[in-house]
């Protein structure tokens, strides 16, 4: 399996950026870029490769953030251990919804609706458990700078953690794509019955893909909580986040390992510029434009911007 050299070069270049005297706002953008690339890459493993389209992946960002944060606040558990618990809880929830859904053939849009419903249910649970979670006001994580508490005064350590986890996720996506498991997921994406007929355990393969995706996503939630030091149910469990993750991957190319990263390279700066230009008044404007962009890409670019780039390269 030849490792993609471009990915290595890109990662090394990204790793030396902090040498430059850049403002911390710049690193904030880079961290958001890496986080959304990471989350969309995780999403693509189940929703792009196997086409089990989740529109509720915020469930697992939220669970990741809340489980580790609640453990930190109430029991003083370091987020590094909290992350393990957060991932375990997210995987358990994923099995709870994924196993029956896949076992009993909840396919296509019905699976998407089920995942949306999960996120909505979790959001209202975390809002109504006000005594523990602070309800819709959310939780501020007390600031205590130390490695042990996964809190840093500078953006640089966050940047390196985001870069490392992004690199690992993209490498995982790449190796799945080149291995038998990736071929199985492609077969499932194309025709589930035909996949069964050649001996593919469709239910199990989908579940494994979902669990890989969810495990990665939950870590994204832990990271977000520790980076932002404030979490609230609407932001973390809400539909906008789920849609943003799905849109990022779809615009890039949901079928290829590098697709979600390309999508994030376009969308993260795009929404940041939009936010600066229009201000908070037009917060929802970005979603309108997201929608428009999604329609254009879905209609004219079946393989996303990545497909467009590779076609141009061939010509």
């Amino acid at each position, binding site marked *: 399996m030849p490792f993609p050299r471009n990915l290595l070069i890109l990662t090394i270049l990204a790793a030396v950026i902090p040498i430059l005297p850049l403002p911390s706002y710049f690193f904030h953008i880079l961290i958001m870029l890496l986080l959304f690339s990471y989350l969309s890459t995780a999403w693509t493993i189940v929703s792009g490769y196997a086409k089990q389209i989740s529109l509720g992946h915020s469930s697992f960002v939220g669970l990741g953030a809340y489980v580790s944060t609640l453990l930190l606040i109430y029991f003083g558990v370091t987020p590094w251990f909290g992350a393990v618990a957060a991932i375990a809880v997210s995987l358990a929830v994923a099995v709870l919804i994924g196993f029956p859904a896949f076992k009993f053939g909840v396919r296509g849009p019905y699976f998407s609706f089920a995942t949306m419903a999960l996120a909505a249910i979790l959001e209202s649970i975390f809002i109504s458990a006000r005594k523990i979670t602070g309800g819709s006001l959310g939780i501020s994580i007390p600031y205590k700078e130390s490695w042990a508490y996964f809190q840093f005064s500078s953006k640089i350590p966050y940047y390196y953690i985001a870069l490392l986890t992004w690199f690992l996720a993209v490498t995982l996506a790449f190796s799945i794509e080149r291995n*038998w498991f990736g*071929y*199985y997921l492609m077969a499932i994406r*194309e025709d589930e*019955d*035909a996949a069964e*007929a050649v001996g593919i355990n469709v239910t199990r393969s989908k579940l494994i893909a979902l669990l890989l995706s969810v495990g990665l996503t939950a870590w994204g939630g832990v990271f977000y909580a520790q980076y932002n030091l404030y979490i609230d149910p609407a932001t973390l469990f809400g539909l906008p986040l789920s849609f943003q993750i799905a849109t990022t991957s779809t615009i890039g190319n949901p079928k290829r390992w590098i697709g979600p990263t390309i999508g994030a390279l376009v969308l993260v700066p795009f929404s940041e510029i939009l936010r600066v230009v229009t201000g908070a008044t037009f917060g929802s404007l970005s979603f309108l434009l997201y929608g428009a962009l999604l329609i254009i890409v879905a209609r004219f670019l079946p393989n996303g911007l990545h497909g467009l780039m590779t076609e141009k390269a061939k010509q």
Partner: protein
Amino acid sequence: MALLETQTVTKKFGGLNALQNVDLKLEKQEIVGLIGPNGSGKTTLINVIAGFYKPDSGRIFFEDREITGLYPHDIAHRGIVRTFQLTRPFGNLTVLENVTIGALLKTRIVEEAEGKALEILRSVDLYEMRNSRSKDLTTGNRKRLELARALAVEPRVLLLDEVLAGLTTSEAQSILSLIDKLRREQGVSFLIVEHIVRAIMTISDRIAVLDAGEKIVEDTPESVAANETVRAIYLGKEHV
């Protein structure tokens, strides 16, 4: 016991008896043709054997072990592989990728599976088309691809659901000789559902005739061709 055996298999869809007490045997290296008018239950029988439908009653045995109610992928693992009447390629994937996926059941190494897939593509005359997107193939090539993908799984029994339908005479002839070669050289057994009775008569060792879900005749091709009941079903009673 035969290699593959169905015992009094019954399958109902609502009030309709799609299959009624069907007994069928398939020996090693044997080719059995399954014929019958539209809606007589031929495809249903394939679906039941391959695990896509659970029979309401009756049992199915393969290599002396019961396989009734197993999942399709389990049944494929044991060595029974079916094709689909309306071909179902992995449409956006290339011909080579389609067959490679079939070959990945026996080896988990993609390069090995690809090598095997290329070999199979040569044997079904699809090698030149290996990099074409499979949904762009002609009907004849899609049928070949359907067969190639099933062969990649290295089946001991192939359930072929109308692989000849829609092919020209020479295309059908080349598929028939491939089937015969697989039987002789690799010892594969075949249960072939076919509408084109003439094609199936020449290649089958035995013919089973289904009508309204019941097996009415099972005999050598010659006897079946001469059978009054069969002629009545196909040509109408007044012609006999």
